[in-house]
């Protein structure tokens, strides 16, 4: 169990850099903020005794997906976004909806009975979580696992087809 201080630190880091993603005008800065956000999220995962997921988060999300994002930004040579006329009404509407959603979620969680409880202690060691997840993955969830493989294959082929230059 993590101390409250660490939790709050990582949580606020995640949120602040999440806001930075949305606000930044420079796409590269946006992408890098997202990376930091992911790292904080991975820390939070670890605090929840989900070690495997935390590592996967860093490896796949921060390591592969964000790298892909940065590749594309570089490929398209995206500059700092020029400020176009801001549609104040649309922005205000969007922020209002977001705010409403936040309030609703917090009030729901606030009324949820179990949300007040702390986490029960684990008596068993959690160091073999990779083993356990592997058992589940190849045991109970074998079919979804295979399908996920096919999904990735399809995505690969699709990405390749879509970004091919038309040969004249």
């Amino acid at each position, binding site marked *: 169990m993590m101390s409250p201080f660490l939790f709050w630190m990582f949580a606020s880091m995640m949120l602040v850099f999440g806001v930075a993603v949305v606000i930044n005008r420079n796409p590269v800065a946006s992408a890098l903020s997202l990376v930091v956000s992911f790292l904080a999220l991975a820390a939070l995962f670890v605090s929840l005794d989900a070690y495997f997921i935390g590592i996967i988060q860093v490896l796949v999300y921060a390591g592969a997906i964000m790298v892909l994002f940065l590749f594309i930004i570089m490929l398209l040579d995206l500059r700092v976004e020029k400020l176009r006329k801001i549609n104040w009404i649309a922005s205000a509407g969007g922020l209002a*909806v*977001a705010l409403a*959603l936040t309030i*609703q979620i917090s009030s729901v969680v606030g009324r949820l009975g179990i949300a007040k409880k702390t986490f029960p202690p684990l008596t068993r060691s959690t160091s073999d979580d990779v083993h356990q997840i592997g058992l589940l993955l190849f045991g109970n969830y074998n079919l979804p696992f295979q399908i996920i493989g096919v999904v990735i294959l399809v995505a690969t082929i699709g990405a390749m087809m879509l970004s091919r230059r038309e040969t004249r």
Partner: protein
Amino acid sequence: MRFTTNSSLSWLVLLLPLGSAAVITLFTRRWKNLSSFISIAAVLGSFACSGLIFARIDISAPEYTWIDIRGVFNVPIAFALDDLSRLMLLVVSGVGSLIHIYSLGYMRNDAGKSRYFAALSLFMFAMLGIVLANNFVMMFIFWELVGFTSYVLIGHWFERDSASEAAKKAFLTTRVGDFGFMIGILMVWMASGSVVFDDIVAHLSKITSNPSYLTVAAVLIFCGAVGKSAQFPLHVWLPDAMEGPTPVSALIHAATMVAAGVYLLVRVAFLIQASQTALLIIAWIGTITALLGALLATQQSDIKRILAYSTISQLGYMVMAVGLASNEAAMFHLFTHAFFKALLFLAAGSVIVSLHHEQNIWQMGGLASTLKITFGTFAVGALALIGCPPFSGFFSKDAILALAYQRNMPIFVIGLTTAFLTAFYVSRQVIVVFLGKPRSDIARRSHESPLVMVVPLLILAFFALTAGLQVVAQNFLVVPHEKEASLIVPALAIIALVVGSGIAFLVYRNREHDPLDVDLLRKLFYIDEFYAWLIDRTQGLLARVASFIDRWIIDGGAVHGASSGTFGFGSLLRLFQVGNVQAYVFLFGLGIVAVIYFTIFR
């Protein structure tokens, strides 16, 4: 259905002419003479059965339930065989038989002979149906059928425009009357719960408890008689109906169909006599009609039209008698009128045929010497019509005038004036057609009609002469007689007769053309023009209203409205398709917020 051997005579009376019509239409169209003989045989058969029924050989009335909605609406096909209907049966089938035989001669060269005899048989079926009906609905059905066959017969020579127009006019005008008749029937049925005459008599108190309702119902039923019996204001069809062949005019428009109206009124006398207002209305309309007919007849130049207006006038007398609450007088006059009017028409037909279908009286003259028998019978009929004793017309007309003298003086005065006019125009007709010198070549070269036409004339003349006498008439019906044996009325009537004939003799003797020329009368009081104008106005208005509704409300509103409404709504909805994905996302988020709100926070 009681179809015992006892009741078969009544069925035969009705169904023989129907069978003849069916056979002629379906099978023997090509063989004209055969068709005519079948028709004549059928009507003679009907006459024989009527005679047997009259002699009380069979008095059971058959009954057949046609519609039976329990407790609400019950219409039987049943016959009413009381004194009234038995007498009418005899008259209708008797006169009908004579006219059928006469038609053999009149229509001998006609191309549509089969069609003519089929329609004639169908008419006999319908007319006998009216006589035999014991309930309103059955009578109404046959009433309409009579109207239809009259249309067919008037328009027999339909290639002539005037004939088909006249047929249409007859049908439509009587239809107007029938509409009122139908509403009257419905009112009576609603009040008493039955359409059968005897049942209505039993429940009469239900209707009489509401006097205004009763009056309205009675007047509406009278409307049917106004149409069918050519009373004012629906009299306009009868003169034009002379476009049909003369035997048709004799049968339908003198002896039977027009008498159907009077027969109806006598049938429902129990209803009419319960309302003094209705009686008064009926009496006055009858009187006006009598006067109108007589006035218009004085200026006509067509031999049949004079007789047509004369019929209108005499029917007015009969209706007047009904209005004065004496069924016996009305039926007596109907009885005698059937004979002498049919006689007059058939004799006129004989004249027309001898003159190769010439009908203008100013082309005739001096026919007394060439057409002796026709002249003789025509004279008998004429004398009966003007009410000269001892001919039958004298007794019946005298009965009616006596009634008027007793009960309603103004009507008596008008009736007497009409008698004077009757004498005037009948004498005019006789003088111009038969006396004097021939006015045209055709008149000079005329000769008597064949025997088959002359014999019915003689038979009818015999009845026109004798039917009025007490000894003869009391075998057939109840002869009305005045309570006080006053001599004033017959005296006045005879004076009017003599004066009228005298004046006519003085005016019309040895004339080449009509010295009197009253445009108002010649143009029939402009009634036809008035009706045409009226219909034009109302029809035009209705047409304009209907056109407006059709163009603006139906086409514009419903059709066009639906289409442009849908179009507009579609244009409105299209504004949602902005193409901007973020707008869609916004709406999506809005939807989520709303859903969460409504599921959790409500």
